[in-house]
């Protein structure tokens, strides 16, 4: 499903960084999470081996996806779970709506599921007049504010406690100006407990689905997925098909990597393994494609489907940390989102692969060893080939390739550049030059490296 954004990443990022103290806070906070991840990773001598196993298990899964899904379906049905298939986001939403209608339920809770964000389930159900309550604290905050999550693990990381306090004052009647996170969380706990107890239907995501058992695992720290799923008489779990892993024993690799990579915790508080509905309960699984089978066929990009949604690449990314999740105008932001979203809609997301320095930090922290920065680079080439790159970029690249292909022109251009920066600084230090925004231009060196080398070689 295409995003409706009418701005590019660069334009939105410019707005984001206009508030410098907040940008610094965002940057520092996510870097702190990255440091916690490092500490957790370094506590295990076998960390690199785990990453390799995880990457290889996932590749095995991609290369046997057809069989694993057929096995999973068979075992899930034998367990008493109803299995549904959705080609795209629209079908996914319609399946859920039909279950709601068939059972005539009104009170619905939902724990965190990036897939339902990708499919725009909330908007779809709201239009049908169905209210859905997000129960993850961060997601409830952004839902009250009519925003979307800005981070797949930390949905409200773009907000400060004053913002949350104002939102809760408006919607939950908390004391005005009381910014204490403990107090605010307590208020949300009380509010959402009532919702859990009253709920008739619970929607959750899926972290891992196991072909061998026909069961699935949902991980949370808050316990909201469990409160919803065990209270309601209907549980719907939604998954992209790439969540499949072959065997339960492989959870012993993935659960060791997931929380350590995400937040630096050894494991999430709850890792809940659902295999069968409880007595009297309906359990449904919706398996969604939405472009994934197409991505599976793209040799350069299929490894992006290994992603386990830990967001380590977000937290380490110098561009994400300083531009905020909403700048990416998609459900999954950050480096991984920038290689997933062009597959969903290249035209709408053509700016995203350029929202990177290609420093490679994302690939270095990825627990399933996705070559994220290389794929970003490859997407840029695809987008330029399709004639979708920003005009200025195409022109600059053409100019650059001409200059670089002709050494004499290159040397001349260098000389001119140094002379201009030194004698006519206003030509570069102005708003027309995108590199001058938020930056000081460097002082021009007296001579090029080539000249310096030729001079010193003679000495």
């Amino acid at each position, binding site marked *: 499903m295409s995003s409706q954004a009418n701005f590019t990443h660069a334009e939105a990022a410019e707005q984001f960084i206009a508030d410098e103290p907040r940008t610094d806070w965002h940057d520092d906070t996510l870097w702190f999470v990255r440091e916690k991840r490092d500490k957790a990773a370094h506590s295990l001598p076998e960390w690199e081996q785990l990453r390799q196993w995880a990457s290889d298990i996932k590749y095995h899964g991609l290369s046997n996806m057809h069989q694993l899904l057929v096995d999973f379906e068979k075992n899930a049905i034998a367990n008493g779970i109803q299995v549904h298939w959705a080609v795209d986001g629209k079908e996914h939403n319609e399946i859920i709506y039909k279950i709601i209608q068939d059972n005539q339920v009104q009170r619905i809770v939902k724990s965190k599921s990036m897939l339902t964000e990708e499919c725009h389930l909330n908007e779809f159900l709201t239009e049908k007049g169905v209210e859905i309550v997000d129960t993850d604290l961060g997601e409830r905050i952004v839902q009250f504010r009519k925003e979307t999550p800005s981070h797949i693990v930390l949905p409200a990381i773009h907000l400060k406690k004053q913002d949350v306090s104002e939102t809760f004052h408006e919607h939950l009647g908390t004391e005005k100006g009381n910014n204490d996170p403990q107090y605010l969380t307590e208020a949300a706990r009380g509010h959402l407990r009532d919702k859990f*107890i009253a709920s008739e239907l619970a929607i959750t995501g899926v972290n891992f689905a196991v072909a061998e058992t026909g069961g699935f695992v949902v991980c949370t*720290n808050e316990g909201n997925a469990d409160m919803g799923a065990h209270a309601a008489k209907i549980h719907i779990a939604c998954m992209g098909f790439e969540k499949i892993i072959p065997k339960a024993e492989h959870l012993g690799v993935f659960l060791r990597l997931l929380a350590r990579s995400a937040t630096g915790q050894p494991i999430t508080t709850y890792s809940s393994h659902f295999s069968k509905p409880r007595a009297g309960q309906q359990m449904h699984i919706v398996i969604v494609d939405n472009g994934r089978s197409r991505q599976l066929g793209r040799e350069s990009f299929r490894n992006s489907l290994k992603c386990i949604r830990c967001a380590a690449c977000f937290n380490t990314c110098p561009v994400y940390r300083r531009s905020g999740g909403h700048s990416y105008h998609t459900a999954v932001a950050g480096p991984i989102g920038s290689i997933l979203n062009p597959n969903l809609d290249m035209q709408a997301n053509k700016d995203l692969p350029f929202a990177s320095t290609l420093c490679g930090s994302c690939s270095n922290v990825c627990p399933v060893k996705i070559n994220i920065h290389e794929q970003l680079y490859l997407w840029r080439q695809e987008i330029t080939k399709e004639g979708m790159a920003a005009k200025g970029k195409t022109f600059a690249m053409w100019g650059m390739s001409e200059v670089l292909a002709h050494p004499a022109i290159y040397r001349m251009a260098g000389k001119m550049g140094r002379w201009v920066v030194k004698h006519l600084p206003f030509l570069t230090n102005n708003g027309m030059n995108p590199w001058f925004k938020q930056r000081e231009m460097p002082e021009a060196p007296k001579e090029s490296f080539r000249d310096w080398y030729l001079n010193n070689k003679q000495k």
Partner: protein
Amino acid sequence: MSARETILAGIMANQPLSQKLPVVRVNEMIQYEDLVSQFKIILEAIGGACLEVKDHEELDTILQELIKEKQVVLNAINPSQTLVRQLQTDSLESLASIDMAIINGSLAVAESGAVWVSEEQMILRILPFITEQLVLVVDRKNMVSNMGQAYQQIDFSEIGFGAFIAGPSKTADIEQSLVIGAHGPKKSMVILVG
């Protein structure tokens, strides 16, 4: 074509040549000599508490102590125990009033502070999540170093639901400030017996 057939046909056409499944060598995963102290360190670091008792007699004494001044306690270890005020119904409203649930766990994992609890041990699936305080009781000899070993001991063919539970429920969704007690228990304790 149905959605199922469309998706599976698309996958069949696009999936790469099969690559072998790697052998995960659990014996290459971290091993701790002192499982109890490692477990304690991790559990305390994630906001939980750990007690050791030498036998079931001492366990009973400790539990008596813990349930003092609690209004509603659900003892899933020994539901017939008289010292416990039982719930009148298992409606969600009354479950939400539980002050403390005492539940057996079958396995404790030193590397993560997690305890595996199966559906049979919970009695009700929602019990370990809805209670205000959670006490998990694990036999000391059922401890393993890492999650790899833990999965070798769980038989999924028999299980409808089960969970690894590591410490109390928590959130840091407001400015990354850690708050213990999100939707689940505000306190969580593991008692190791033996």
